[in-house]
């Protein structure tokens, strides 16, 4: 296996982007990433997307996106792992470059979610769960994470206030991110008094419906040096699966796919979680950030809520989490999210983050991207 680096990054603004089409979102992000890397050709590309079929009635995304990025006739493949589609696309691109099969590979992610109404979007998202045995009975995604939250509260004494602190922190971070969908600061009371979606999760515990795309360029480390680009090395890669239905798991207060993926990535990098300076994790709901931080071994079971309350995961805390604003504030165009996490990590490790959210003295970071209620998870570790 060759050493691989990220040599270019690009993303669109995240939000309700009425003016922009599915294909143009992807092309904009891809163009920005290629210009950033200083490359005008690709050897191959991967497109992470959860549900072009249900959101815009379009499949065959490898062809569509390679066409509109103007890079025909390279091999182009769509990768799907629900909300972890971006992470899975990044993994596929990493493997292709590491293997020596290709030199310059684009990993992108995209979702256009606002061309359908809220009911259809909810339905499309629910297909990431067990359609026949969860969705059929009236489970929604907030509902599944609410089941997890209730179990976590019952076992560990986690409170709604702890969950609210996750949201407040991520909105504070997002307020400094020019690409964020909801860059406004919120308060704990604001979260607790917001509309209930699925008890105990309020609307301000939930990530939004978002349009957006992100792309990154991967290449062998030595090529980055030739291009004169500062290489951000990929030193760990892990992926794992778990049951499609939340109810099939013995313990629903831990996400085993995140745990196993993190173990694999850390073992590959020959590091422990305490060697990591900050993380972008999949906060599709506030409870998810807490459960993931416990599952990847950063905090003991039941202690991530207290860490959030104490500010340990804030920008100036001992382990900043989601400096981008996370899915909560930045937005969650599902297929793009895993790539947008890599985008933020590369920005931070290059020292290029905007508006005062730049972290100091950071060398290594972890990205955790998750599908469904944890049925799949990817973890990547990057180093400056």
């Amino acid at each position, binding site marked *: 296996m060759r050493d691989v680096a990220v040599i270019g990054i690009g993303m669109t603004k995240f939000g309700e982007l009425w003016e922009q089409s599915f294909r143009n979102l992807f092309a904009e992000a891809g163009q920005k990433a290629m210009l950033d890397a200083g490359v005008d050709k690709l050897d191959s590309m991967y497109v992470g997307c959860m549900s072009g079929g249900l959101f815009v009635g379009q499949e065959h995304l490898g062809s569509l996106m390679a066409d509109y990025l103007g890079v025909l006739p390279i091999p182009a493949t769509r990768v799907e792992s629900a909300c972890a589609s971006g992470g899975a696309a990044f993994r596929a691109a990493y493997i292709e470059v590491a293997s020596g099969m290709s030199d310059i590979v684009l990993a992108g992610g995209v979702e256009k979610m606002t061309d359908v109404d809220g009911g259809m979007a909810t339905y499309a998202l629910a297909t990431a769960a067990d359609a026949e045995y969860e969705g059929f009975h*009236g489970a929604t995604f907030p509902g599944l994470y609410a089941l997890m939250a209730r179990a976590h509260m*019952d076992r560990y004494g986690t409170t709604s206030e702890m969950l609210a602190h996750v949201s407040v922190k991520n909105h504070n971070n997002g307020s400094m991110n020019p690409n964020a969908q909801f860059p406004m600061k919120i308060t704990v009371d604001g979260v607790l008094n917001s509309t209930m979606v*699925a008890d105990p999760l309020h609307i301000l515990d939930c990530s939004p419906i978002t349009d957006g795309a992100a792309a990154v360029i991967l290449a062998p480390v030595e090529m980055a040096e030739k291009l004169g680009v500062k290489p951000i090395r990929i030193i760990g890669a892990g992926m794992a699966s778990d049951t499609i*239905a939340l*109810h099939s798991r013995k313990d629903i207060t831990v996400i085993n796919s995140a745990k196993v993926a993190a173990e694999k990535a850390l073992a590959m990098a020959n590091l422990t979680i305490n060697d990591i300076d900050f993380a972008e994790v999949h906060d599709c709901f506030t409870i998810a950030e807490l459960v993931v931080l416990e599952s990847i071994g950063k905090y003991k079971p039941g202690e991530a809520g207290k860490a959030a309350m104490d500010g340990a995961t804030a920008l100036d805390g001992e382990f900043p989490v989601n400096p981008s604003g996370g899915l909560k504030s930045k937005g969650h165009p599902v297929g793009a999210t895993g790539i947008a996490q890599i985008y933020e990590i590369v920005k931070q490790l290059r020292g290029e983050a905007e508006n005062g959210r730049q972290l100091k003295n950071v060398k290594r970071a972890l990205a955790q991207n998750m599908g469904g209620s944890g049925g799949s998870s990817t973890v990547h570790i990057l180093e400056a």
Partner: protein
Amino acid sequence: MARTLTARVWREQPQRYRMIANKDKATGEVYFPPRVVAPGNLNAEFEEHQLSGTGTVITYTVIVVPPDPYADLAPYALAIVETEEGARLTCQITDCDPYTVKIGQKVKFEFRRLYEDNEASVIYYGYKAVMI
């Protein structure tokens, strides 16, 4: 969206109407819905097993913002229930104030109408749980 054809509906009826699970003959593990392959054992042999119809709430939520098919029903309680046989499933807890459901609550399953899909002309039936 394509209309659902009836084979997809009747195929699941043994599970939705009668709660038919299967049991690994060697380990006694009960799977709902029935599995073709036991986790980690390609050679497991199964026998049909009807769930007894009672269970315990493992965790719950109250769905306030429902998916379209259940738009008229919200707020409703949704729970993960561990059946007496150990297999777990997701279902609604009905015939109660949804905010009174608690972890550890004993329930029994009943056959109920779930929702109608007018486009496909299908009325879906299945299990819900009531407190005992």
